[in-house]
C-alpha cells in the first residue's frame, strides 16, 4: 500500500479514537492490527515487546482514572488502557512495515513535498547512530575535565547544537556537490505509485471506522 495513504488512514484512526470512549472498538482495532502484522510476517517476539512496552504507562493511565477519575471511572480506566494499545498496535502496522525512505519518497512524489525537505530529513536520519555516539563523546569529554554533563546542563545542548550546525553545513555541501539543487525539478529512480486501490482502502477504512464509532451498538 502507498506509504503516505497508509499514514493518512492511521492518523485519522488515531485522532478519532482519541475522542471516543468505546473499549470494544479499541480492542477490535488491536486485533485487526495484529492480523495485519502477522500477515506481514512480524515475528512473535516483536509482538510480545509491543504488548510489554506500553504496559507501565497503560497501568498508570488506568490507575489514574480508577482512583482519581470522576463519573464512570471503571469505564474510562479501561478505555484509556485499551486506547494506548490501539495506538501502539495501529502505529506498528506502519512503522514495522514501512521505512522512512518509502515515506519520504511517497510524500515527495505523490504529494509534492519539496525535495529539500525529503532529502534533508533523510540525510539527518542516516546519522542517528553517529549522533548517539557523539552524545557519549561529549559526555566523556566533559568528564575528562571534571564536568558532569546531564540532561539539565545547558553545555551539553550547546555542544550538541554546535555539532549540528557544523554537520548540517557539511551535509548540505556534500549534497550540493553531488548535484542536488534546491527547488529544481527531479526525476525519480524509485517510483512510488498512488493508485485507485489506495484511495479505495483509505475511504473504506474511514467509512468502517465511522460505522465502528457511530453505528455498531458496542456493549
Amino acid at each position, binding site marked *: 500500500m502507498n506509504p503516505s495513504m497508509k499514514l493518512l488512514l492511521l492518523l485519522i484512526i488515531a485522532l478519532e479514537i482519541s475522542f471516543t470512549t468505546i473499549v470494544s472498538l479499541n480492542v477490535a482495532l488491536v486485533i485487526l492490527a495484529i492480523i495485519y502484522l502477522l500477515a506481514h510476517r512480524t515475528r512473535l517476539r516483536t509482538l510480545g515487546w509491543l504488548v510489554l512496552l506500553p504496559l507501565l504507562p497503560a497501568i*498508570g493511565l488506568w490507575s489514574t*482514572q480508577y482512583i482519581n477519575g470522576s463519573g464512570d471511572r471503571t469505564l474510562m480506566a479501561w478505555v484509556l488502557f485499551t486506547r494506548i494499545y490501539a495506538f501502539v498496535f*495501529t502505529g506498528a502496522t506502519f512503522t514495522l512495515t514501512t521505512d522512512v525512505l518509502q515515506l519520504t519518497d511517497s510524500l515527495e512524489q505523490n504529494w509534492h513535498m519539496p525535495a529539500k525537505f525529503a*532529502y534533508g*530529513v533523510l540525510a539527518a*536520519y542516516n546519522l542517528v547512530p553517529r549522533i548517539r555516539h557523539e552524545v557519549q563523546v561529549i559526555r566523556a569529554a566533559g568528564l575528562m575535565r571534571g564536568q558532569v554533563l546531564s*540532561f539539565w546542563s545547558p553545555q*551539553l545542548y550547546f555542544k550538541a547544537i554546535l555539532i549540528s550546525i557544523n554537520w*548540517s553545513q557539511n551535509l548540505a555541501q556534500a549534497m550540493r556537490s553531488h548535484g542536488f539543487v534546491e*527547488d529544481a525539478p527531479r526525476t525519480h529512480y524509485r517510483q512510488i505509485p498512488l493508485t485507485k486501490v489506495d484511495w479505495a482502502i483509505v475511504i473504506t477504512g474511514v467509512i468502517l471506522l465511522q460505522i465502528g464509532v457511530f453505528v455498531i451498538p458496542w456493549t
Partner: protein
Amino acid sequence: MKWVKSWYLNDIILLALIGIFFGAIFMGTNFVYNVLSAALTPFGLSGLANELLLGLWCMPGMLAGYLIRLKGSATLGELLAATVEMFFGGQWGITTLISGIVQGFGAELGYIATGYKHYDWLGLTAAAATTTLVTFGWDLARNGYFKLQLWLLILYLVVRFISMFVFGGLLTKAITDLLDRSHVLKSTH
C-alpha cells in the same frame, strides 16, 4: 510557495539534527520517567511523571523557533524530531507525529503571539505558556484528562507549566545565551 523558498537545505538538516541530538540526550531520562511513573501509579498519579518531564520533550520546538527565525520553524523542528523518533525505537507510532505537531504548534503560537520579534524572555515565556495550554488541551482528550477530578487537573496544569518554564524557559535561555556569546548563529543566517 514563498514560504518554502525561505527555507534552505542547511536549515532543514539543522532542525532535523537538533531534534535527533535532543532525542538521544533524552534517552537518559527514560529510566527516571519509568521509576517515577511506577512509584506514583499506586496513588493514581502516574501522570505527574509525564507532567514533570514534558518540558524536556518540547524543547526542540522552542529552540528551533529561536535558532531559525522563520515562520513555522518551531512546528517543523518538533515535527522532524517526532518523525525520526517514530521510526527509531519509538513504540508510540503515529501518535508521536500528532504529539510532535501539537507541541511544535504550541511553541509556535508563543512566537506568533509576540510577532516573531521577541527572541528573549518574553518570547520564551510566551512559548512555554502556549505550549502548556495547547498540549494540555490535547491531553484532555487523548489521555482522558477531562474525566479527572478538578484538583488533579489543576495540579497537572500547574506542574506542566512549571516544567515548560524550567526546561523551555530557563534551560533554553541558558542554552541560547551560550549560543549568543559564541556568535555562531550569525554564520548560519
